[in-house]
């Protein structure tokens, strides 16, 4: 009964306690400190869980109700890293918002409460073995982040929060139906333990699940969790929520929450593949993936709002991930998994940089942002290099993953899919670079707010540099340990 037996539990509980503690009345500085300390602890716990899983195999607690396998651990690592960066970035960011009169100092404790509850629910979703509990956890992520999205309380933020709640709740209702159909398939299967909805039990008996039921279940689940993952055409809440939320929340929504939803799809992907063979789910994912990528193109090209630009990029990238999973095989899955991780880091970097830039100019409209490299040098650089990274330019990590997805298409003879993929990526690269180039370079235009660098912009700079280093490191070399980790995740997904 030592603490190490309850590492996974601690990982879920720590953020919740952090949020509640930060919510206690006190000075905003102390609340920020509590948030930071709690995040540091959560980061240590997430690393410990991942290490444990990758060296000694899956972690099981509470009679297997809480279970972390390689897939879970991989995303726990991402969640721990990105939410800690966000927590480190937050206090100075909020201080500036308070100084600009956008939020009241006394409401910051609510921000910290919802942010950490949100983090806790994501860890819950990544550690729940029972598919029904995983559903409850994903729904809880919506509930915990809705207030964070509407934090500014302005008409537009309330509109975004409302759409987010309604669309995701309806979408997730379909995922609940899909989960129930899976349960029915398990109950009807010969020799499956009564009441089984634990993923680790189901995955052992996929061959005995009724194929028609599993097809129905996967269709429902893909619509449901696909809504949450921002796949088109269920993506309509995403640009609003990601652009209206405070920037560290946008980073977390884009970088991690979408990945958590993809994880849920992957769980069912494994089950349906076992029950009906690989073709069915793959085709659906390729379809939704390409549609999401294509949907992002026009909105990227004519975009005027910086944060909406980044949000549509998230839709594109979840499309790439879905496409990679759908194409399958070692290339496709490696590409999708690697992409999922580094899209998180890259999009975090972009939202962190965009947060600094929008604060300096007091606007999200790209036409009013000029010469950012002079006004906010580190953030301007982060925005520019982040753009290169997210559009898949070498030497950044997303080049490797996009290359791998393309290779998956061409090597399996699906040339048209590969060409379409490359064409969309190229167009979005051009549009992105056009928008961001204009913002970063050139002379600052007239009405720059030019806030005196808050004490905190140091922390923002640190966060930006750390993310950049990770993106370059992930692109330049893939050490044996990383290959081993991705291979372990691949095994969970039934490849290699």
């Amino acid at each position: 009964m030592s603490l190490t037996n309850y590492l996974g539990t601690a990982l879920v509980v720590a953020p919740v306690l952090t949020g509640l503690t930060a919510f206690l009345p006190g000075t905003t500085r102390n609340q920020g400190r509590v948030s930071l300390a709690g995040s540091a602890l959560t980061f240590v716990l997430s690393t410990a869980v991942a290490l444990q899983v990758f060296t000694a195999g899956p972690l099981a607690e509470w009679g297997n109700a809480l279970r972390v396998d390689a897939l879970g651990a991989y995303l726990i690592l991402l969640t721990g890293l990105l939410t800690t960066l966000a927590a480190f970035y937050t206090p100075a960011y909020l201080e500036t918002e308070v100084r600009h009169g956008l939020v009241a100092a006394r409401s910051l404790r609510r921000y910290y409460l919802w942010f950490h509850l949100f983090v806790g629910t994501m860890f819950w979703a990544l550690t729940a073995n029972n598919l029904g509990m995983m559903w409850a956890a994903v729904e809880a992520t919506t509930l915990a982040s809705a207030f964070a999205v509407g934090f500014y309380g302005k008409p537009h933020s309330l509109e975004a929060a409302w759409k987010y709640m309604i669309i995701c709740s309806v979408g997730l209702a379909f995922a609940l139906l899909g989960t129930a159909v899976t349960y029915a398939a398990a109950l009807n299967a010969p020799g499956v333990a009564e009441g089984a909805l634990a993923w680790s039990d189901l995955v052992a008996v996929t061959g005995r699940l009724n194929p028609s039921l599993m097809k129905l279940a996967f269709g429902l689940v893909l619509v449901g969790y696909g809504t949450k993952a921002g796949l088109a055409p269920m993506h309509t809440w995403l640009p609003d929520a990601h652009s209206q939320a405070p920037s560290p929340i946008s980073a977390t929504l884009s970088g991690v929450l979408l990945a958590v939803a993809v994880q849920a799809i992957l769980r069912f992907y494994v089950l349906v593949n076992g029950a009906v063979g690989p073709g069915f789910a793959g085709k659906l994912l390729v379809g939704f993936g390409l549609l999401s990528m294509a949907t992002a193109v026009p909105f990227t090209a004519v975009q005027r709002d910086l944060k909406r630009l980044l949000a549509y990029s998230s839709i594109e990238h979840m499309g790439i991930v879905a496409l990679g999973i759908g194409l399958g095989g070692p290339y496709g899955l490696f590409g999708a998994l690697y992409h999922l991780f580094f899209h998180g880091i890259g999009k975090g970097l972009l939202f962190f940089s965009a947060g600094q830039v929008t604060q300096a100019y007091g606007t999200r409209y790209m036409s009013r942002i000029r010469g950012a490299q002079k006004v906010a040098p580190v953030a301007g650089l982060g925005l520019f290099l982040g753009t290169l990274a997210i559009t898949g330019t070498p030497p950044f990590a997303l080049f490797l993953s996009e290359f791998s997805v393309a290779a998956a298409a061409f090597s399996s003879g699906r040339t048209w899919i590969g060409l379409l993929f490359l064409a969309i990526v190229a167009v979005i690269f051009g549009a992105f670079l056009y928008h961001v180039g204009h913002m970063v370079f050139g002379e600052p235009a007239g009405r720059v707010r030019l806030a005196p660098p808050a004490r905190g912009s140091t922390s923002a700079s640190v966060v930006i540099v750390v993310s950049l280093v990770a993106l370059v490191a992930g692109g330049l070399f893939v050490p044996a340990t990383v290959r081993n980790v991705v291979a372990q995740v691949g095994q969970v997904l039934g490849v290699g």
Partner: protein
Amino acid sequence: MNTLLSAALLIAVLLVGMRRLDHAAIALGLQAAALGALTVWLAAAGGTPELYVAGFLTLAVKGVAIPLVLLRVLRRLERKVDPHPILAPELAVALAAALLVLARAVIPVGLFGGRSFADFLSFGSGMVLVGLLMMMTRRQVIAQVQGLVILENGIYLAVLGATQGMPFAVELGVLFDLLVAVLIMGSLTFRIGTTLDSLNSDRLRDLKG
């Protein structure tokens, strides 16, 4: 049993056309009470003991707590009527009834094996569609929340039919999530009402592109 099921379905259909939102909140409570009673009936007919608890919890949360929350929000906002439903109430009710019949005809209940209750499964799925219809044909935000609750009730009924309910812990999680969701939506509604001075979701269509 058929009486309870019919009552739940009749309420779903009527709700779609109900413009008095306070009456609709009470009707939702009655519908949940019918579903709770159905669950208890199933439990008595040889289900697990946990099914009793699920039935009573449904009664307490969906039958009492959620309607009370909705009524409280309506009272604080001093608005009880949905002024502009997109469809005329008569037409909405007719459409809802048609959706139930459609679901009865097309849901492949046979797939779910002998131990399912075909009526619960097919009409539950129909109720999901009725909930969606209500969410799409109303502009008033509270009415949209009520549509979501109908949708959730439909899922509950369908799952009851397919598998006699989810494992108990999952039912608890789902019920808890729904209660929190209604609380949060209530609070958001209140803020929307005070910030925009309107509860019309047409006022929430500024963000585009």
